[in-house]
């Protein structure tokens, strides 16, 4: 286990393990599920895993740049959710389904 600063109560490794587990959970969701909404949720899970990493290392290195970066990640996540939901609405209006493997009209 990594040596931690005397004032950091939680080892930084723990953040990395938790972040890796949460990220791979999101990857499994994206790769296996057919429902477009669950895939969007899984992408949000992966972004949260990244945020955990950034905050943990920001505390470990005693530097606030990581926390500032989390703010920008949240901005991108909010924009992605808005555009993703708009695309989902448009797709549902056109096809009456949200199962991603049925959106194959452009397949060669």
């Amino acid at each position, binding site marked *: 286990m990594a040596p931690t600063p005397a004032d950091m109560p939680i080892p930084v490794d723990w953040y990395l393990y938790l972040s890796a587990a949460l990220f791979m959970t999101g990857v499994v969701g994206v790769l296996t599920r057919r429902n477009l909404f669950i895939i969007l949720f899984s992408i949000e*899970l992966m972004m949260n895993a990244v945020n955990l990493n950034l905050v943990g290392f920001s505390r470990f290195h005693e530097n606030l740049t990581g926390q500032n970066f989390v703010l920008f990640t949240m901005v991108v996540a909010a924009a992605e959710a808005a555009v993703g939901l708009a695309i989902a609405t448009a797709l549902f209006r056109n096809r009456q389904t949200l199962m991603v493997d049925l959106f194959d009209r452009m397949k060669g």
Partner: protein
Amino acid sequence: MVEKILFIIFAVMTVAGGVGTITRRNVIHALLLLVFTFLNVAAIFFLTQAYFLAVIQILVYAGAILVLFVFVIMFLNLRTFQEQEQTHRGQRWVALVLSVLVLAEFIIVLAGITFVSAKGGFTPEAITAAGGSTRVFSNALFNQTLLPFEVASVILLVAMVGAIILVKKEKAANVATREWEPDAESPAEAAEEEV
């Protein structure tokens, strides 16, 4: 010691919420478990003494994004998808096994690394002495990353305009070129929607 126990509890609940999110059949249940995960991540931010980010996490993720998702899910009629197959037939087991392998790789690599702190000086004591977490956070934000902050506002504006254009009703000239009308459903589906 107390922090470690709390961290383990919140970490277990975070991963459990994540696994629940990707295994639920009902989209609303998945969404509520996702919000549970977000709240646990916010609790871990509190434990890390990133107070401002914890509050923003609750406001933005568990508040705004939740409301957005709930609104769209209620707006569309998703109940009919619960009876269909939920996973890709050809790749679910391959994807699961490969993901577990990648997670094992992460753990093996992380177990062999020792990190050395850069000692940037922003310890909790120094932050408290400098006027609190939010003040120090915003000083760093507006001094070092002012230009990215302004660009972020442009990103949000572009996302808003894009979302409005995507969901806008198409004009009559475009509708005429379609193969079929979305409103012209079969009578059985129309009756099902009214229930």
